[in-house]
């Protein structure tokens, strides 16, 4: 949502708010969403917060629906009478196995579409849907649509009262289009006018759409390095257990067998799939207008609500040693290694694909030779500006005497816009004397050597406020930095006194917790 330009942040003025008026509601809704996530995190901890794993929970739920669907397929029979009877037969299987499988199939499908919609909402409110991410957004909308079609056809196959309502509303909706000569709704005037062939067609769609979902999913994650398919193990197991619990507490039941001569009356409706049922009382043409307008709007969001273009990375060919660290660390597969053609002694060099680069700067933090520019700014500019900032803070402390607060250099990313009212023109932070704040697009941009230089220049401590790793704006920035600081990933942090560097994770709205932790860190500095 807010990607500070390092040069500006280190300059004379704090970063101005760059939200254009039409993006302000998005930003406000994003803040609200982040508070909901914080509330859940405080209950269950960030690593277990299901709101941070919605995408992978959707995939896992689809996998459960697929496995249980194969089981149900073995016993399903087509036909207006046979279909409903076969489902009832499955429900009556010994030991409740059939009921469990059928209920798991339904609830996993519900969980899949719920998690997918929440995932899309998170991407929207987290400002991760435009720029190079537009492909993931558009394919995500397509994925939700395909999951809906699969689920809706599944409900149709049961051929109960809900299926009849679905058939009639869908038929009326389609009948206003010019594509069908004979009204589809007439297919459903009597059970004996519905041919078994229709059941085969719907069953075929129900089974083959998941193959399309697989292909679409590949497009969805094609711009992500190390895409995760399933949630962390604990989340996966507990989600699976929750689905079983739901299946045991409330086994999925069919409504009465569909009979077109009987009005449906009050029917149990799956609101995860059919929240629009009350709107079907409107005319089908109004329905088409609503669907068309909503679909066009949602698909156009990456262009309608696009934010300020981030400064993208470029590689300074002369400085590149071909070490491949940036290539390995880029979370968006935006860097490729190509053979050198300039006769230098290194065999390959890194090249950034600007169409994929989101401007996070993680590659800058990975590069030992400072050979990557972000938004045209050389990493050395950042080093120089930081050093002068630290020197100024140290001088101020020396002038103030022995009672002055210890100078602490603070790095922050998504917290920056929420600190705006507290930031002085030189990065000083109201309420925390001695602290000077530097905004980065992502803390993953931080090369450990930068920390070592800041400490060498006179900073008593370096405090890094990154995003919650599960909610990192650049996917892996917080995690990669943690690995660099803990020595499990190159480049490693070295030569620093224990206790003078601290990395912690915050939701962008957790300003008070950040200030409290920063004061505690400053007070505990050696």
């Amino acid at each position, binding site marked *: 949502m807010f990607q500070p330009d390092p040069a500006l942040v280190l300059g004379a003025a704090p970063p101005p708010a760059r939200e254009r008026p039409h993006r302000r509601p998005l930003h406000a809704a994003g803040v609200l969403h982040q508070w909901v996530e914080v509330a*859940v995190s405080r209950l269950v901890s960030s690593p277990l917060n299901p709101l941070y794993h919605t995408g992978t929970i959707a995939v896992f739920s689809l996998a459960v629906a697929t496995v249980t669907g194969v089981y149900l397929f073995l016993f399903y029979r087509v036909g207006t009478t046979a279909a409903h009877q076969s489902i009832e037969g499955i429900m009556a299987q010994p030991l409740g196995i059939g009921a469990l499988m059928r209920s798991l199939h339904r609830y996993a499908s519900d969980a899949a579409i719920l998690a997918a919609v929440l995932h899309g909402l998170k991407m929207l409110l987290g400002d991760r849907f435009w720029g190079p991410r537009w492909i993931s957004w558009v394919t995500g909308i397509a994925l939700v649509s395909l999951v809906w079609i699969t689920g809706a056809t599944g409900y149709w196959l049961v051929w109960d009262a809900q299926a009849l309502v679905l058939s009639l509303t869908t038929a009326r909706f389609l009948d206003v289009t010019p594509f069908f000569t*004979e009204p589809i709704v007439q297919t459903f005037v009597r059970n004996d006018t519905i041919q078994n062939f229709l059941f085969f067609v719907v069953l075929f769609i129900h089974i083959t759409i998941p193959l399309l979902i697989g292909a679409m999913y590949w497009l969805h994650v094609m711009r992500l390095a190390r895409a995760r398919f399933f949630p962390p193990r604990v989340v996966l197991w507990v*989600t699976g257990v929750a689905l079983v*619990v739901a299946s045991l*507490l*409330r086994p999925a039941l069919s409504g009465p067998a569909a009979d077109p001569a009987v009005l449906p*009356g009050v029917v149990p*409706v799956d609101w995860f799939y059919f929240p629009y049922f009350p709107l079907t009382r409107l005319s089908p043409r109004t329905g088409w207008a609503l669907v068309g307008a909503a679909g066009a709007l949602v698909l156009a969001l990456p262009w309608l609500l696009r934010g300020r273009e981030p400064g993208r990375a470029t590689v300074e060919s002369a400085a590149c040693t071909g070490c491949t660290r940036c290539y390995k660390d880029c979370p968006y597969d935006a860097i490729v290694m190509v053979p050198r053609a300039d006769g230098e002694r290194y065999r390959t060099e890194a090249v950034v694909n600007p169409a994929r680069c989101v401007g996070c700067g993680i590659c800058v933090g990975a590069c030992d030779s400072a050979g990557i520019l972000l938004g045209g700014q050389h990493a050395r500019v950042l080093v120089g500006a930081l050093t002068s900032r630290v020197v100024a803070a140290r001088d101020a402390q020396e002038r103030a005497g022995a009672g002055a607060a210890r100078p602490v250099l603070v790095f922050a990313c998504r917290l920056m816009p929420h600190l705006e009212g507290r930031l002085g023109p030189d990065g000083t932070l109201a309420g925390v004397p001695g602290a000077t704040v530097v905004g980065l697009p992502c803390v993953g941009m931080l090369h450990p050597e930068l920390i070592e230089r800041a400490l060498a220049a006179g900073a008593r401590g370096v405090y890094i406020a990154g995003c919650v790793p599960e909610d990192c704006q650049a996917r892996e920035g917080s995690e990669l930095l943690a690995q660099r*600081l803990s020595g*499990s990933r190159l480049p490693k942090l070295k030569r620093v006194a224990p206790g003078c560097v601290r990395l912690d994770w915050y939701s962008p709205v957790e300003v008070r917790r950040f200030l409290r932790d920063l004061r505690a860190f400053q007070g505990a500095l050696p």
Partner: protein
Amino acid sequence: MSDLPRTVPSRRPGPLRVAGFVVLLVGVSWALGAFAAWPWAATGLGDARLRISLRHVTGFSAGARLLSAEEIAALPAHMRPRDASVPTTGRRADAVLTVTIDGRPALARTYRPTGLRRDGPVYGYEELDVAPGRHVVSVTLAEAGGGRAWPLDRTIEFRPGRAPLVEFAAGVGWRPE
């Protein structure tokens, strides 16, 4: 994640948090069960409804002509008319449906033949809400422009929650109850 605990704090959730996670997921699973089958009144419990379904091929109203022997010969075998003395092309007449219930007009609608040249069958499907009870239903399907008409008078018992069907099929007329 952490080898230097003072630099990178541990993120391992404690048992209370794991318990909170389980409670949350069980709550979500309950909500899944509840909202996967939350009742909705698609129709009122005491409602009754008359359904009328039409499939009809009206007569030609304009442009009807017999194909010449040369034209028939030029057609592929499967497209040749069985009876060359019956016109097979031209604009068909509209169909007009009128419905009265207990003598009161309930519906009057005109249906155009399908097809770009309006030479196809007429299809129609209507639903009329009717108060439960016994009613005299009069339905007439007529070809526009003074063509043939197919009247139907039927006394129907509309029980609550039922939707009796009155159906007209091409070449058959009104189907018996």
